[in-house]
């Protein structure tokens, strides 16, 4: 037998609403189930204590205006709940506002105080890129001279590098390639190829 069903029947038994068949079924179950026996005992104890309570006599005057007092109490508690909710809502607004202010402040900080990232220029034409550099130099010969000295410095840095020292054939007279004819270049190319193969 299911204990849950027995618990329900026990409650009905106390109220005196249980059939004889169910009462017998309960008795049979209680003999076997200790947990339901304990539940039945505690239920009986509660019932006995409740019935032993003194009946409080209420004056007829108490009942007069009972409904209006109840209504008034209910309304006041409803108002209280509304106020509490309104307060909670206003705090929600305060927190939302604070969060919004924080976001705006961080945004402004990033916008105003962070150093701007240098914009990278994408090169799709060598000539245009060179032209833009020459345009920046313009007729400023002093600037061009300084720029040239920096370029030479950079070239020297690379040429001074050990890796380049190992390849002096490519390093020396880098721009003298210009003076060579197509045939000379082809000859050099074939010679280098031979060199690589050997």
């Amino acid at each position, binding site marked *: 037998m299911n204990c849950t069903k027995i618990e329900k029947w026990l409650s009905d038994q106390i109220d005196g609403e249980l059939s004889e068949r169910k009462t017998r079924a309960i008795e049979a179950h209680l003999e076997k189930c200790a947990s339901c026996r304990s539940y039945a005992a505690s239920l009986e104890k509660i019932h006995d204590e409740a019935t032993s309570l003194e009946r409080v006599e209420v004056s007829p005057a108490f009942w007069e205006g009972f409904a209006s007092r109840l209504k008034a109490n209910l309304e006041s508690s409803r108002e209280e709940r509304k106020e509490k909710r309104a307060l909670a809502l206003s705090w929600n607004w305060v927190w939302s506002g604070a969060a919004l202010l924080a976001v705006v402040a961080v945004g402004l900080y990033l916008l105003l105080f962070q150093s701007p990232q240098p914009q990278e220029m994408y090169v799709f034409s060598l000539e245009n890129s060179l032209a833009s*550099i020459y345009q920046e130099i313009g007729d400023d010969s002093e600037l061009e001279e300084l720029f040239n000295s920096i370029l030479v410095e950079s070239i020297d840095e690379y040429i001074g590098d050990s890796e380049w020292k190992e390849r002096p054939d490519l390093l020396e007279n880098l721009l003298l390639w210009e003076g060579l004819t197509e045939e000379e270049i082809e000859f050099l190319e074939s010679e280098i190829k031979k060199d690589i193969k050997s």
Partner: protein
Amino acid sequence: MKAKSILVLFLNIVILSAFVSAGVQEEAQAREKARRMTRENITTLMLIRMTRFLELTEDQTAKIYPFFTRIEKEKMQINQQLRRQMRELRLALSAEDPDAEGLKATIQAIKELRDALKSKDTELEKHLEKNLTVIQQAKYLVFVTTFFNELRSQLNRARMMRERAGQKEKK
């Protein structure tokens, strides 16, 4: 006497203008020389850096360097012509009544030179495509961008150096 003084004055003017014109020409030549040097230095630096960045083999270097320098030489010549044409255009525009036909011809010449420059760039790119691996081609695009951005910062460095030198002189 009067005729003599007029003649002397005339001769003085001629000599003076010859000196001025020689000075202007010299200045233009010096500027041209400086520009040529800048371009050569940029090309040299670019080739050295490119060889490293793309890890070119000697075989590739042998194929790319001569081609690169030839294209550069041709581009330099085109640029010289372009500058000459631009000078002519400015002169023509500064005249009171610019000759429309002459302007048209100069515009056409400038357009053709500009196209020639573009085609040289394309020619170089095609040659690189033929001789570089796909990874090197990709690296080349990154390299060129980086290289020109670096050139810009070097130019800024030159400006700052001059400013600092100027401030020291003031002190």
